[in-house]
C-alpha cells in the first residue's frame, strides 16, 4: 500500500511539472508583458532594458518558469499587477469560499444521488427507472449557470427568500449549492445505478439472501460496498471538476471565490494574477485526482493487494 502511494506521489511530480509548464508557457506567450504598464515616455532605452532584466525577460521562458515554481514552493507567486497584493495571498484568501461551495454541493448531490441510484437499479426496467433516467438526463443537459439564473428569477426576484449574491449569511449558500449540486447528482446517480446493476447478479448476493439477511442489509453491506469504487471515483471526479470549473457558477452569484478572481484577472489583463490562479487550480485538480485514486485503493482490497509485493503473481496465476 505504501509502495502504491509513494509510486503515485512520484508520478505526480512530472505531471505537475508538465501541466504547470504548459500553462506557464501559454500565459507567457500572451500579448503584452508584465513591464508594459510600467513603461512611460520619460524612460530611456536603457531603463527599459534594465526593467526587462529585472523581470528576466531577457532570459528563456524555462528560466522564468523555474524561478516561478521555486517561488511557488515558498508561497510567492509575485504580486498582482493591478492591486499590488501578493497573488498567493489573494488566492488563499478566496479559496475557502470555492471549497465551501463545492463541498456543500457535493454533499447535496451525493445525498440525492446514491439513494436515487440504488432505487433506480432496484427497479431496473420499470417506469421508476425510466423516470430516474429522465431526471438524470435533464440534470446532465441543464447548464448549471442557467439553472442558477432560473433559481435567481424564482427565489431572489419573484419571492424574495434568498439573496441574489453572496452576503455572508447561510441563505446566500442555498441557491448556488442547489444549482451546482443538481448537475453533480445527475452524473453520480447514473454511476450509482450502473455500478449497482453491475454487481446485482453476483452469487454472494444470492447467498446472503438465502441466509436470510434482510434486503436492506444486503443492499448496504453487500451490494453498495462492492459497487463503491466507480461511485467514489465519480464523486471525486465531480468534486475536482466543480472546483476547477467553479468560475461559471461563481459568476452567476458573484461568489467571492477563486473562479471570480480568475475571471477578473483575465478580463483586466492582470497576467501575474491570472497565471497564479490557473496554475494553483490546475495543481489542485491533479492532487485531487490523485487523492481519489488513493482513496479507492483503500476501499478496494483487490487494488491494495495488486500493489503489495508477492501477491501480484498469485493473482496472475489465478486469472
Amino acid at each position, binding site marked *: 500500500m505504501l509502495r502504491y502511494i509513494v509510486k503515485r506521489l512520484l508520478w505526480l511530480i512530472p*505531471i505537475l511539472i*508538465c*501541466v504547470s509548464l*504548459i*500553462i506557464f508557457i*501559454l*500565459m507567457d*506567450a*500572451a*500579448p503584452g508583458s508584465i513591464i508594459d504598464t510600467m513603461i512611460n515616455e520619460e524612460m530611456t532605452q536603457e531603463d527599459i532594458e534594465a526593467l526587462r532584466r529585472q523581470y528576466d525577460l531577457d532570459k528563456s521562458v524555462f528560466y522564468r518558469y523555474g524561478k516561478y515554481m521555486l517561488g511557488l514552493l515558498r508561497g510567492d507567486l509575485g504580486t498582482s499587477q493591478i492591486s499590488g497584493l501578493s497573488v498567493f495571498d489573494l488566492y488563499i484568501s478566496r479559496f475557502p469560499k470555492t471549497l465551501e461551495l463545492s463541498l456543500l454541493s457535493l454533499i447535496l448531490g451525493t445525498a440525492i444521488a446514491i439513494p436515487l441510484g440504488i432505487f433506480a437499479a432496484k427497479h431496473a426496467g420499470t417506469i421508476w427507472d425510466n423516470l430516474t*433516467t429522465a431526471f438524470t*438526463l*435533464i440534470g*446532465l*443537459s*441543464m*447548464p*448549471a*449557470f*442557467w439553472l442558477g*439564473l*432560473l433559481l*435567481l*428569477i424564482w427565489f431572489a*426576484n*419573484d419571492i424574495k427568500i434568498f439573496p441574489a449574491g453572496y452576503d455572508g449569511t447561510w441563505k446566500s449558500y442555498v441557491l448556488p449549492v442547489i444549482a451546482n449540486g443538481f448537475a453533480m447528482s445527475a452524473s453520480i446517480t447514473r454511476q450509482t445505478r450502473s455500478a449497482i446493476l453491475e454487481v446485482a447478479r453476483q452469487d454472494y448476493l444470492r447467498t446472503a439472501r438465502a441466509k436470510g439477511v434482510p434486503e436492506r442489509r444486503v443492499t448496504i453491506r453487500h451490494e453498495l460496498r462492492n459497487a463503491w469504487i466507480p461511485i467514489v471515483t465519480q464523486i471525486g471526479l465531480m468534486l*475536482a*471538476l466543480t472546483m*476547477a*470549473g467553479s*468560475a*461559471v457558477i461563481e*459568476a*452567476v452569484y458573484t461568489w467571492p471565490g477563486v473562479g471570480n478572481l*480568475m*475571471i477578473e484577472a*483575465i*478580463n483586466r489583463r492582470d*497576467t501575474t494574477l*491570472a497565471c497564479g490562479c*490557473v496554475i494553483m*487550480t*490546475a495543481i489542485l*485538480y*491533479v492532487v485531487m*485526482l490523485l487523492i481519489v485514486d488513493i482513496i479507492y485503493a483503500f476501499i478496494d482490497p483487490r487494488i491494495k493487494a495488486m500493489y503489495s509485493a508477492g501477491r501480484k503473481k498469485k493473482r496472475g496465476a489465478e486469472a
Partner: protein
Amino acid sequence: MSREQMTAVTQKQGQSATLASRRYKKKSGFVESWNRLKTNPGAMFGLIVLIIMVLLMIYSFLFITKDDVMAINSGNRFKPPSAQHPFGTDSMGRDLFKRTIYGTRYSLTVGFFSVAFGFIVGVFFGTIAGYFGGWVEEIIMRVSDVMASIPGMLLGMVIVAVMGPSFLNLLLAIGISNISGFVRMARASVLSVKGSEFVEAARAIGMSEMRIAFSQVLPNSLSPLIVTATARIATSVLAAAGLSFIGFGVPVPLPEWGALISDGRSYLSLAPHLTLFPGIFIMLVTFACSLLGDGLRDALDPKLKQ
C-alpha cells in the same frame, strides 16, 4: 457430468451461438443497429430534435442575415413574447427568436467540430498506442495523462486569455480538451480486438501493420467510440455555452446561446425571457445528444442491455 459442468457447457454453447449470430449480423451491422435504434423512443426523440436543430441552422444561414440579429431598434426594447416576436425582444430591441435561431450555428458547430477534432486526433494516437504498444504506447499515454490533467474549463480560459475571445479559439480549446478521452478509449478498444483471428488473417495475407491497425482493428472497435463521441457533443456544447457565458467564448454581441444568457442576466426581473429561451435551446441540444448517445450504446452493443 456434474451440474456445474453442464451449465458450463450450455453456457459455452450459448456463447458460441451468440457469437455465430453476431458474425452473421456483422454483414448488415449498420442496418441491424439502426433497426434496434428505431425501437428506442428516447433515441428517436433525440435524433428528431437534432435534425430539427440542423434544419433551423440551415434556415438561419439562408434567411437570417447578420443585420437582422445585430440591428438595434431602441423603440422595441424588452417586449415580452408575442406572435410577432415569439421569444420577445432584448435590451436593444432585437428579436430574440431570430438571435437564438442564428445562434444554432455556434453551438452546433462547436459541439460537432470540437468533438470531431478530439475524435480524429485522439483515435489516431489511441489506435497507434493500443496496436503497437511498447515505448510508443508509453509516450502517447503519458502525454495523454498530462492533457487529461488540465481541466477543460481552465484550458479554455487560458487559451482565451492568451489569444483573445473568438469562435475559433473556443472551438480549439474545447477540441483539445476532448482529445485525451478518445486516446484512452481508442487504445482500450483496440487492445480488446487486437488478438482476434481476423488480425492474424490480415497479417497472413501480408498487410502492413499500419494498414491492419487502421483498416482492420479500428473499424471493429468503433462502436464505443461513436457512443462516447455523441455524449461528448453534449458536454462540449455545455462547456462552450459556459465559457461564452463568462465572456470567454464567442464575443458579444454575436448571439451565441451562452452569450445570450449572459446578456439576459442583467435584466432577470425585467425580462426573464431573455435568460429562459436560449437556455432551453442549450438544454434541448444536450438532452438530445445524451438520449441519442444512450440509445446508440444500447443499439451498438446489445449485450450491455440484457
